């Protein structure tokens, strides 16, 4: 940290706004104004630079003190028959406070990003997988297959940081890395190698991926395939991909589950994962599921170690009761099964609570706009800007420290929800 009269410059700042959690950002802070000076991208710029507007809690639109807001939430929790704590854009200690409150208050917990996360979690719980992490990919990967995902829109620096680095630890020619898109086309050039080689694209609609993946797996296993094309892709083209995977020393299959938005995508992912296990009979291959931003990986991790289960667990009967379908927050809200929605969204002003008849409490990032003013709104600090924190990366292995960059006085989710829990 170096200071001049007006601004503070921070180095090696971690971004919690993207699942790869780049930690090489340089950030300038001037009062409450934050600017990304180096290594920013569309996602981190929006994440860090969204200005603070409101700083005062409100009850039914009227400004109140934090203490009043907290005791009002505690009252609502006490009266509620089935509280739902959802959204869950928060950091480690925020997630701990959510779990403690849910346990005490008999609430159900679920994350905004669960529809994507559960496409992977269901596979873990049914058959498992072989995965790898970002630094392994950066140093070992020779073939990268991107399945159904335009990763550069959600993970803008993935290729720069993980794929097209200057050198690998094992003397690999970086330009020789093969990038193959299966399904979606990439929207930009991030996947083009430094020497100008464009990624190969084997295009199909994402909804055709289950079929395409099944055929690819069959080809890798040497099963006879009668048809000549599947979803418009020539079998010969898939066969060539299968051969590449079999010949590669360290292939990596990646997808952003959030983009595999079709019914039972988990089954297609399971097929991919089983295929990767089979490739490992002779050579090395690993999956790299991409996701985990804005506390998504963190809340699932904390829920698992504190309760044994990831998101979509209810404490309504005084013990953790996990059901990935019944405890889906979107379903609960749609079916009017909750009378109190506590919405936590401390990273992203655009992730606002769903429309619901239930009484709504929002712990939201300052600047959040509502169609319907919630009963309680508490503008909270952003982990990694307004207070220190820790967050997990997409690989669920590395947890990175988040810095406090400014002194906005906004409370953390941990502070607010711990106070609510104490008041119950």
């Amino acid at each position, binding site marked *: 940290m170096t200071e001049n009269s007006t601004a503070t410059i921070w180095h*090696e700042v971690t971004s919690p706004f993207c699942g*790869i959690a780049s*930690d*090489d950002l340089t950030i300038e802070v001037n009062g409450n104004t934050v600017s990304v000076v180096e290594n920013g991208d569309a996602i981190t710029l929006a994440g860090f630079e969204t200005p603070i507007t409101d700083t005062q809690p409100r009850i039914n639109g009227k400004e109140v003190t934090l203490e009043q807001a907290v005791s009002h939430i505690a009252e609502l929790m006490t009266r509620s028959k089935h509280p739902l704590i959802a959204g869950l854009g928060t950091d480690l*200690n925020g997630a*701990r406070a959510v779990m403690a409150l849910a*346990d*005490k208050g008999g609430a159900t917990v679920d994350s905004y990003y669960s529809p994507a996360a559960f496409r992977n979690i269901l596979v*873990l*719980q*049914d*058959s*498992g*997988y*072989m*995965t*790898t*992490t*970002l*630094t*392994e990919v*950066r*140093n*070992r990967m020779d073939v990268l297959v991107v399945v159904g995902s335009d990763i550069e829109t959600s993970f803008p620096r993935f290729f720069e*940081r*993980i794929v097209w680095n*200057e050198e690998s*630890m*094992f003397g690999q020619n970086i330009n020789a890395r093969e990038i193959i898109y299966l399904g979606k086309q990439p929207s930009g050039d991030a996947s083009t190698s430094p020497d100008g080689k464009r990624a190969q694209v084997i295009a199909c609609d994402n909804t055709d991926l289950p079929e395409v993946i099944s055929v690819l797996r069959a080809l890798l296993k040497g099963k006879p395939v009668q048809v000549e094309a599947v979803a418009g892709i020539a079998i010969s083209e898939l066969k060539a991909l299968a051969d590449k995977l079999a010949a590669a*020393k*360290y292939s990596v299959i990646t997808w952003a589950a959030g983009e595999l938005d079709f019914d039972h995508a988990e089954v297609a992912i399971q097929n991919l994962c089983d295929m990767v296990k089979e490739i*490992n009979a002779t*050579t*090395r291959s*690993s999956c790299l599921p991409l996701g985990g931003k804005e506390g998504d990986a963190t809340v*699932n*991790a*904390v829920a*698992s*170690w*504190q*309760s*044994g*289960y*990831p998101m979509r667990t209810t*404490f309504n009967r*005084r*013990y*953790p*009761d*996990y059901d990935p379908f019944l405890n889906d927050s979107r379903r609960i809200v749609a079916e009017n099964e909750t009378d109190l929605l506590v919405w936590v969204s401390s990273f992203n002003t655009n992730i606002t609570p769903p429309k619901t008849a239930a009484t709504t409490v929002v712990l939201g990032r300052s600047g959040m706009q509502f169609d319907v003013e919630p009963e309680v709104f508490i503008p909270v600090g952003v982990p990694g800007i307004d207070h220190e924190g*820790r967050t*997990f990366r997409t690989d*669920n*292995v*590395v*947890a*990175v*420290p988040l810095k406090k960059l400014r002194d906005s006085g906004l409370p953390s989710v*941990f502070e607010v929800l711990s106070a609510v829990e104490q008041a119950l």
Partner: protein
Amino acid sequence: MLLKLTGGRIFDPAHNQNDVVRDIYIRDGRIVEKPIDGRVDEEIDVRGKVIMAGAIDMHTHIGGGKVNIARTMLPEDHAEAIVERTELMRSGCGHAAPSTLTTGYRYAEMGYTAGFEPAVLPVNARQAHMEMHDTPIIDKGGYVMLGSDDFLLRMMAANADQEAINNYVAWTINHAQAVGLKVVNPGGINAFKFNQRKLDLDEKNEFYGVTPRDILHRLSRAVKEIGVPHPLHVHGCNLGVPGNMQTTLDTIQSAEGIPMHLTHIQFHSYGTEGDFKFSSGAAQIAEAINKHKNITVDVGQILFGQTVTASGDNMRQFAGAPHSHPNKWVCMDIECDAGCGVVPFRYKDQSYVNALQWMIGLETFLMVDDPWRIFLTTDHPNGAPFTSYPHLIKLLMDKSFRNDMLSTLHPEAQKATHLASLDREYSLYEIAIMTRAGAAKLVGLADRGHLGVGAAADITIYTDNSDREKMFEKPDYVFKDGQLVVRHGQVVKVTWGTTHVVKPEYDVSIEKSLQEYFDKFHTQKMANFKIHNDEIVDDGRGSLTIQPLHKGGKL
């Protein structure tokens, strides 16, 4: 507040007290001298009761990525062991991979006051500490894992001098906030990334040309030279492979007198004799342990039933994956640092192999002479969940019970063991050595595991019962740092234990090459890798206890 425990039978091997009747005085969390004026604020009559220091589990997988994968993976295993919330305790669950809260409560209820996570990956250390932070009552700590990390192997391939390796080891222990150093399948996890499927003690990693023997040598020397009390904690090559007893015997030889702890030795004591080509090597291994005083072991006893195996050894876990039950498993390569594998498993008493594993573990317990050099573990949850310790203690203390159990197992396995002829029964004193005094000495905890003046008042009080399982599963009282936390086997107060660490000195020049390495190859900055002391204190509940180094180590 001065508390007096009156008239108990003291088993305190650190002070050679074997069933000695004396009073214990506690003030401010410590055991103190009898007050000069004789005034006490509270007295508990414990006449006739058995008193030991709180038990210490020196090898238990309670925190970190692989454990959490196991938790998330096994909803069906939790469903049979759901724990309701009480006024005092959080809800939770779990049998094979319990939630952190349940883990802490259950350990305390069995009279355990500390548990050590043996496989903390440097890049995952932050998570391990987060989970241990959420584990109530007991103290904790971790052994950080090196040996398959590319930084070390690069140093070794470049023939770095021992001083540089010592610096790196000390740096890692400091910044991962660890109390010891572990190596898992030395170099093997790394070799698996290059598609090598096995790595014997003298087999070279195909990229680095380094052998497991070299790695063991370098790391065990480093631990000794930087003064870390806990010897290098070794999960050897070829875990679970029939015939691996020879690797283990060679590993013991390779230590060349330097202290080395061989963990879950049961999984490394297999021969290849008999019709099943699988036999017990316990006798030879025990003989070698008895002979080599620099060697300590913990057993990693298996017990029958469902569990989950969670290990850093993804090379061996991948090989074992076809045996997963239920049929699901995870293997991971991790950050040019390590790996992990999680494979659920059910040990069956009518399986020849599993029955013999059970016998091999018990043979080892009974044939290693010195209870100061062998430790009671199931390698939780790999051999069995830690909640089976009282049952295991009964197997060790009660020959007729043991032989009754033995007679129900796979008949061919019974023929392959001479367990029935082993008459040894562990005494209470020996149990106190294995689970208290010896464990504290091994981990390097100066103020735990004993009942002398100045010790932390971690104390467990049992009613003597010839059914040792009943006795050890439900202590009458457990004190943690002087506070009564368990009464009649039930938690009555929830406290938060400390995290034990060591802080060996290193030369900061090591950071120059590390900085370069992180910048060039990693996806995280070196500064962000380091875990600061205040992260352990965290929300205020945590604390750090720095244990003293051995003489010879720089302070």
